[in-house]
């Protein structure tokens, strides 16, 4: 059954239809052609699909597209201001926290959500914030460096 979804993504109002079984990730990638959020495990375990939903980081692969109705969603495409990258994005580049890059959008959204909660995260806050994101290249130390650098700039 097809349903109509009206939602706000990165500040823009969007209306589109999708099958009721569609995940928010499929809605973003396939219906809206926004390919920044990544499809990886598709079971809510790796965090590559992380988006911010009504202020909170969630796995879009295990969220119903139907639940986007009336919600406010921020994706990786919504972070940069024109050509100027978000401080978290810039910090990932400056510290070399990107290897293959596939997990990076999900990590950055989790870190963005962390800084929305607190501007001065503790080591424990950082660990909790990215505990749901897996980097298969195991570049965690650089990612933590990036978060600490971003914390200084924000």
């Amino acid at each position, binding site marked *: 059954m097809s349903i109509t979804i009206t939602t706000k993504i990165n500040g823009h109002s969007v209306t589109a239809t999708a099958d009721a*079984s569609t*995940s928010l990730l499929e809605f973003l990638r396939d219906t809206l052609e926004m390919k920044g959020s990544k499809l990886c495990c598709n079971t809510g375990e790796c965090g590559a699909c992380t988006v911010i939903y009504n202020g909170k980081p969630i796995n879009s*692969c295990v969220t*119903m597209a139907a639940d986007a109705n009336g919600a406010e969603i921020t994706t990786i495409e919504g972070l940069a201001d024109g050509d100027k990258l978000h401080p978290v994005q810039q910090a990932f580049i400056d510290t070399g926290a990107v290897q293959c890059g596939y997990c990076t959008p999900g990590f950055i959204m989790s870190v963005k959500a962390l800084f929305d909660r607190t501007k001065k995260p503790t080591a424990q806050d950082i660990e909790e914030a990215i*505990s*749901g994101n897996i980097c298969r290249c195991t570049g965690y130390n650089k990612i933590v460096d990036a978060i600490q650098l971003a914390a200084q700039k924000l």
Partner: protein
Amino acid sequence: MEYFEPRSVSEALSVLAKHGAEAKIIAGGTDVMVDIKFKEEPGGLVNIKKIPGLSGISENGAGLRIGPLTTIRDIETNTLVRDKLPVLWEASHQFASLQVRNTATIGGNICRASPSGETLAPLLVLEAKAKLAFGDGEKSVPFTSFFQGPGKSSAGNTGLLIEIDVPYPPPGSKSVYLKHAVRGAMDIAMVGVAVLMTPESGKNSIEDVRIGLGAVAPTPVRAPKAEALLRGKPLSASLLREAAALAASESSPITDQRSSAEYRRWIVEALTRKGLEQTWKAATGKEIA
């Protein structure tokens, strides 16, 4: 696939009366969406998130009333839960990732009726109750009889969980939730053990103890024989060993990709011992005799 978005409990119940056999209730979606992609697509989805009044935590006499749509993160960050029901807080804190905790609901964790559901062993030792709505009225069911098998509960496919009632544990009691998993919180528990111990007023012996076991039987279970053995006695080293072994014998684990049945039984024994020891020390201030 049909899709329903009921706006009230009674509307949901009439949808379930008609489509309950083939449709699935969906709330957070962290389990059901995975089923849709990797198992079988159900005949329909009943999205209950638009029903008002099914979310939130409030004090209700000598306990907390938790709405089934309350997210695990809202439970984890609620100060009443942290102060009054620390064993439920511990389980919520160790529940999957932050992303999952932000969407998964306690009602979903319960109605999924998975033996390894993180909040279930704590709810068993807290002697919490489920309030269920059916077409012909409401029913209050203790969690000790709510779970009937993997994926099966007293809610059946026409009932709706509308409230979780959690009484405060007895004054002076101490509790703990211990989870054994390879990757910490992100992983599904191989074994989860919840212990709630109440010492008698002189703090010399155990007045009451409740042991809840997760992931080691077709449903989350209590260990009644071990509990009976401990009641009325001071916790000695030999009693501790005996009770832990008895709890392990009361479990009936399976072998799967996470661990063997034999290994799980060892872990039940080890975690029960640890849980009893910790709660005894915390509740009485005494070492094991």
